[in-house]
């Protein structure tokens, strides 16, 4: 299903009709990739936190393993989101008269970029915290606590800050990411929703494979 959805995304996303907006032009196709990356990242982080909570309730190591690996895949999608976003911004936001790298610091001040950076830093810190503890049970418990704590405090960074700071990024009023109902046309929506689903499922799939591998490694380590 993932493969089908993603194949559809690529085909329809690259070939299908799109509205031609000033400045954006054909780069609007990046919507199917860039926005989906962030959706997938947030969904994966949320799955990670849910597993952390379940770990704290049950203390079964399999939930801890899942929480860690989902966070890892989330970071990967976040980095990909930055990559696709940078390509997009270089065609739309950057001033063509000055070199691309010089406009970086102006672009990087955008509150959505800051929010995303905070999310990635939090999960990088989560990884550092995990690796700094040797005792397995303690590591699982402490990092689960940090995961929940940081995730809850992440919300102001992502949902409140973008609303009070000025920004170039679309979606200034209301939803910080993208107003799906008004910003994009109906034709784009039938590609966009399957694309979100496809990328998220790809992330889940990658993580499931990693979890199985890690389970086998742990079993071998124990025996």
């Amino acid at each position, binding site marked *: 299903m993932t493969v089908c959805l993603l194949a559809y995304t690529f085909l329809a996303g690259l070939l299908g009709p799109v509205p031609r907006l000033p400045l954006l032009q054909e780069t609007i196709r990046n919507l199917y990739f860039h926005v989906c990356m962030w959706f997938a990242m947030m969904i994966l982080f949320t799955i990670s936190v849910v597993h952390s909570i379940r770990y*704290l309730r049950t203390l079964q190591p399999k939930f801890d393993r899942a929480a860690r690996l989902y966070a890892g895949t989330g970071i990967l999608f976040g980095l990909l989101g930055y990559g696709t976003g940078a390509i997009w911004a270089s065609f739309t936001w950057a001033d063509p008269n000055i070199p691309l790298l010089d406009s970086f610091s102006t672009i990087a001040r955008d509150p959505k970029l*800051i929010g995303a950076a*905070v999310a990635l*830093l*939090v999960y990088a*810190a989560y990884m*550092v*915290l995990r690796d*700094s*503890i040797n005792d397995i049970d*303690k590591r699982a*418990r*402490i990092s*689960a*606590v*940090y995961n*929940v*704590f*940081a995730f*809850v*405090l*992440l919300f*102001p*960074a992502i949902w*409140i*800050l973008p609303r*009070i*700071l000025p920004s170039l990024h679309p979606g200034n009023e209301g939803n910080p990411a993208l107003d799906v109902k008004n910003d994009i046309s109906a034709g784009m929506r039938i590609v966009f929703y399957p694309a979100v689903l496809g990328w998220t499922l790809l992330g889940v799939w990658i993580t499931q494979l990693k979890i199985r591998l890690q389970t086998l490694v742990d079993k071998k380590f124990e025996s």
Partner: protein
Amino acid sequence: MSKIYSLIKKDFLLELRQQYSFYGLLLYGAATLFLLFMAIELPEANIWNGLFWITQLFICINAVAKAFLQESRGRMLYYYTLNHPTSFILAKLLYNGVLMMAMSAISLLFFFLLMGNPVDKMGAFIGMVFLGGFSLSLVFGFLAAIAARAQQNAAVMAILGFPVIIPQVVLLMRLSSTAFSPLLNIPIPTVLLLLALDALVILLAVILFPFLWKD
């Protein structure tokens, strides 16, 4: 309630008997400020604001870090047998909040002495400084508990804390920047937002701390 009170009293007595740590903190703040004083003379209002909150952030890390790091393993076990985790964490957070508010007030005084006084609405700004010091100390208080359980030092606390604290610091800086200009009004929603965040942190700490402290 009485347990919280006696725990706070214990921390306060400890502070009185080991005064070196308080003076150390004071010296830390003063030395940082003197360094700034040497580096920049009479900064503009927005730079003043930025420097002030960054200084608060670093003082806060040092002030709060020792709250949990000073407790030895054996003593933690002793508390564990005596107290409920909720009252323990609440006592710690409250005590650190008050300590940090005192530190904020002292460093504000130093700032006025050395870096000039660009503040227009004095009363509001002092209120914001207290609110800010309290908010910072709450977040770092809980992170200090995590770092102490992981047997790590204050550096790990900074790594864990900086990404989490960014939204609050940005809110605080924007809030306090209104106190510098006679034209701008104090945005009440931002104040309420900060208070809501404080309540959220306390709630999270109360929910999550019991998991941290079992061994």
